[in-house]
């Protein structure tokens, strides 16, 4: 027998170790699930880490109220199959309670508001560690972030004052009120994620595959026509064959023109893509040079 491990199995093993390490060292972890491909991979890794036992943490979805219905259906089905506990933190509830104020106008988005809902939920449930599907290849601020990433009592990330991370020895020590964000798939790329979905035969929401959809063009990106997004007069809807590379809010996630209707086709498309997934499809990262860093400093995912 060979003692060689493929790159995906090596990444998988590292991620399982990270999940178990955080579960062992933290009192009340939670796994953040968006319905997107990265968090789908996280759920599979959690099965690998803890079965035949139950997950030692609940699954939490921050529901903006502007989600793709396909992603919500998928979430509920997956949680049911796993027979694990789901916590939903609702941005609508934060708006109703006056914690945040809804933006108005055609370019409004609930993306920013999520941070308050997320931090409120972390405080309410006294979570001290939140697993996220963030990857370092996604974005430049993420590229510098630790696997065990410290958040102060206000949920803030301080990129200049991070704990050195050595070997596989993670420091999970916290003061009261602080928490960790833990990123088990930090070292995976978009391509690794799709290869893993293929290798494991994981199901992903249909919107990742090419389908006919009513869209409109804004800032060179294609957006889904939905009741949550107000169109400008010149933004004429039309039908196109598209797929989504990321699954965020309907208000800030763009589609790409694509004929890729199987995982094999998606893999081929990702391997030959000319744009990064966030560069191609995320309006939330286009706000400024350091849009992600600024949001992360305030406690974003």
């Amino acid at each position, binding site marked *: 027998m*060979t003692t060689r*491990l493929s*790159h995906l199995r090596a990444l998988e093993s590292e991620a399982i170790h990270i999940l178990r390490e955080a579960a*062992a060292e933290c009192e009340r972890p939670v796994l953040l699930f968006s319905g997107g491909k990265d968090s789908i991979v996280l759920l599979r890794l959690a099965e690998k880490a*803890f079965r035949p036992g139950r997950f030692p943490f609940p699954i939490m979805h921050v529901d903006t109220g502007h989600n793709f219905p396909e992603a919500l259906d998928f979430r509920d089905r997956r949680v049911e199959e796993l027979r694990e506990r789901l916590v939903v933190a609702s941005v609508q509830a934060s708006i109703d309670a006056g914690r945040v104020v809804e933006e108005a106008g055609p370019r409004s988005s609930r993306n920013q508001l999520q941070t308050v809902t997320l931090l409120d939920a972390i405080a309410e449930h006294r979570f001290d560690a939140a697993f996220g599907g963030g990857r370092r290849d996604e974005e430049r601020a993420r*590229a510098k972030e630790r696997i065990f990433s410290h958040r102060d009592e206000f949920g803030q990330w301080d990129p200049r004052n991070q704990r050195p991370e050595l070997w*596989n020895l993670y420091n999970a020590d916290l*003061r009261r009120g602080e928490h960790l964000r833990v990123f088990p798939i930090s*070292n995976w790329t978009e391509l690794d994620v799709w290869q893993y979905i293929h290798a494991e035969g994981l199901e992903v929401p249909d919107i990742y595959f090419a389908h006919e959809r009513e869209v409109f063009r804004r800032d060179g990106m294609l957006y889904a026509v939905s009741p949550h997004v107000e169109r400008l007069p010149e933004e004429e809807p039309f039908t196109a064959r598209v797929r989504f590379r990321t699954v965020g809010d309907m208000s800030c996630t763009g589609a790409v023109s694509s004929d890729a209707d199987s995982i094999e086709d998606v893999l081929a498309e990702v391997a*030959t893509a000319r744009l990064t997934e966030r560069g191609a499809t995320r309006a939330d990262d286009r706000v400024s040079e350091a849009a992600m860093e600024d949001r992360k400093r305030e406690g974003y995912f």
Partner: protein
Amino acid sequence: MAALHEHRVDVADLLVDSTDDTGMDLLRFTTAGSVDDGKSTLIGRLLYDSKTILADQLEHVEAVSQARGDEQVDLSLVTDGLRAEREQGITIDVAYRYFATARRKFIIADTPGHVQYTRNMVTGASTANLAVILLDARSGVVEQTRRHAFIASLLGIPHLVVAVNKMDLVGWSEARFEEIRADFEDFSGKLEVRDITFIPMSALTGDNVVDRSAHMDWYQGTPLLYHLEHVHIASDRNLIDVRFPIQWVVRPRSSDHRDYRGYAGQVAGGILRTDDEVVALPDGLTTTIAGIDTLEGSVAEAFPPMSVTVRLADDLDLGRGTMLARTTNQPRVEQDLEAMVCWMSDRPLSVGAMLGLKHTTNRVRAKVVDIVHRLDVNSTHRDPDATGLNANDIGRIRLRSTAPLVYDPYQRNRATGSFILIDPATNATTAAGMLLDR
């Protein structure tokens, strides 16, 4: 920049080989050298030629370089995206970058050359299979080169590549290359690096980075990328001493698995096999391995760095921090420890300090008993009179821990010989430690 070419990943390989253990594997390497040595250019070329920098990233980097008035496109901007980094034109931290060829996936820990140098290089080196040390062919081996090589050796990186860059500026001279090689070997004989490869190159012109140089017929070796793709790393792991630190106990207590008790962890050494007789340390209880489980079912054996769940024949009620080893090949179990440490905190280390210590999955406290010496990483001179260690200092210290550690010397096993120290006042990680043969 060279055109995109044959090193791009073939889609068919992605489908066939993604988890097959005969397929693509993973190499982690660290790069050391300053911007002046051409490090960014080298990494940029590896990323660009492997099609890892995508069009939007390249456009962004070009725009920022231009706005700053740089003469050349500064590829460090691909990941130096923090506000402070862009404003000050510095790299704050270790940056992790990823690329792949059809043979391997690579993780680069790119460490900045100036700020917090030692701390960052130690961090990047801790997980590396290989270090690329860049030097400028005009200046040859300088103090910084020796420091890089020393840290690579201290952290037990098995493979070193000395990239003699800017060969175009010394007329592609074989004599100059050989002179630098001799200089390097003069001091590297004292280091504990098993495998050193010298490659003459020009990152700027692309000679011997991805493609073989047309200017240096005298060089018989391979270009850097070929070397990275083919260097043999499988036997770098310790496959002899069975070590399994228990990380998590799986006890479902469900109707389907009423009596299941599995010990989950990542194999830290050796090859675990069903029916092996093992000892649980530090307690010293012995039993046999009844089965090795994964989500897909049982496997006959497990080796580093696999994450698995082990079932034991006897009901021993073990917990996190316990280490399983073969009865015939046991690690040390001691409270009096001696180690090399790299100190990383602005609060100096002094004798008498009580610190948190994390080693494998075990957590204890430890008292600093003695600072044996401080090491000058440039001259490797030892100062036995040192009374403290400051940030970025490396030294040999003695510790006494509140409970025994189950360990091997770092030189024997990086996974069971490494630890971190944590300041209980700030919760900061203050040191990287490597246990020594006492």
